[in-house]
């Protein structure tokens, strides 16, 4: 184990880790319920994944293999800097391979490849309160959670349907966890919501600025809110991935030139690279 001189293993001091660990255990015991915790200042600004980083720091051990993704990509600024942060402060091995990772910290995506029982998924959460846009008072939303009074959210979905003909929420689509707590799945696309349902891996959520931790244990029911006559449906761009040809993965739209050219590629870069290495070629791709 090599870690940066002058810093504790994984940056946080032990007192802070114990506080976060106690919160995490309560979070697992009450799936979907937000637990307040004493969020610390981290060496990067709130909004850059401080909640996820603190959860990762409290969980991470020297034998872990860490993967960090930002919108599915391993090579964006946020992912690279968080991965380097833990490589330096904890000396852990890092990877971009979803299957090789034991701990995956994510910003706004769930990997395409199904996760296993021995993996932990840590989400960076900007706004942990699913009712925040409907009810600004935290005292009030806490009471609504206590009473399981989620009518306001159903009214919002109903108003969407009357106005647009469908529920117009494309990310951070509210879910009901364990049949009891309404939860914000962090701003993952609604496309990823079904992957949370009875996922084999433990899912931990950290919101640094809002100072909340919550969790979904393995094999826990996570149901996207809907109505019998307007069932929850996922949407994706109708194209296939330009590079690997995948027709069921979540796609990013990339401006390719200044003549209106567009390229649709898998948002999960590891998934795309693995497919191309296996010989799949999309319409814009070159054989690997």
């Amino acid at each position, binding site marked *: 184990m090599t870690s940066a001189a002058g810093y504790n293993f994984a940056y946080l001091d032990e007192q802070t880790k114990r506080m976060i*660990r106690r919160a995490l255990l309560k979070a*697992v015991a009450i799936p979907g319920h937000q637990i307040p915790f004493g969020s610390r200042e981290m060496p990067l600004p709130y909004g850059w994944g401080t909640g996820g980083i603190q959860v990762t720091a409290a969980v991470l051990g020297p034998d872990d293999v860490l993967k960090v993704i930002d919108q599915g990509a391993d090579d964006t600024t946020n992912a690279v800097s968080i991965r380097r942060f833990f490589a330096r402060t904890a000396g852990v091995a890092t990877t971009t391979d979803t299957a090789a990772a034991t701990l995956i910290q994510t910003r706004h995506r769930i990997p395409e490849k199904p996760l296993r029982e021995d993996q932990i998924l840590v989400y960076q959460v900007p706004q942990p309160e699913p009712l925040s846009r409907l009810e600004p008072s935290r005292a009030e939303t806490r009471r609504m959670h206590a009473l399981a009074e989620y009518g306001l959210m159903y009214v919002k979905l109903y108003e969407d349907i009357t106005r647009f003909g469908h529920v117009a929420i494309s990310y951070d689509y509210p879910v009901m966890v364990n049949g009891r707590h309404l939860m914000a799945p962090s701003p993952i696309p609604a496309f990823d919501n079904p992957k949370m349902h009875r996922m084999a891996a433990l899912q931990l959520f950290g919101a640094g600025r809002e100072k909340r931790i919550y969790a979904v244990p393995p*094999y826990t029911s996570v149901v996207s809110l809907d109505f019998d006559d307007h069932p929850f449906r996922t949407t994706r761009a109708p194209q296939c991935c330009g590079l690997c040809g995948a027709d069921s993965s979540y796609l990013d739209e990339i401006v390719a030139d200044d003549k209106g050219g567009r390229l649709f590629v898998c948002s999960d870069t590891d998934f795309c690279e693995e497919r191309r290495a296996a010989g799949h070629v999309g319409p814009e791709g070159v054989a690997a």
Partner: protein
Amino acid sequence: MSIDLPGFADPVLGAQACFRAVLTAMSRPGLIQRTGLDLTPPSPLAPATAAVLLTLVDAETTLLLAPSLAASAEWIEFHCGARQGDAAADFVVTDSLPDLAALESGNDECPERSTTVILQLAALGQGTAYTLAGPGLAAPTRFLAEGLPADFLARWGANHRLYPRGIDLILCAGTDLAALPRSVAASEG
């Protein structure tokens, strides 16, 4: 003097390894984990119980120690520095199941403000069979433990019905550890 006995050989990595065991146990109810293998806690504290205390308890928490474990009080005080608690303590450490209804089970708005019971048993993985079901379990799972009272199912049922309020149990025996979060339902064998 029990105070002479050491804690984790490496406090940072020892606590991390034990926490992962507790986290896995809590997220997969009834699954037995091993921890505290290198600990030599004072009698009557089991290595797993001691490891959990070193990992989770500190000066920010309150702790209620059962009289039957009083011989290890000095060691716990020295290594953890927890304040003495009452029935509303953050942690209760005991070797017989306490009256769960008398402990703090949190309130509707803050169900997390509840007591966690660290219960030291004779053995895990053998003894009376229970069937567990709930979050963390793909299907109802058998769980064996020796040392829970005969009326455990009734008492646990009353605790489980309080959900999302309730008490979480961390069970320790020797170097074995398992957990029963409040979300899990237990039935006969």
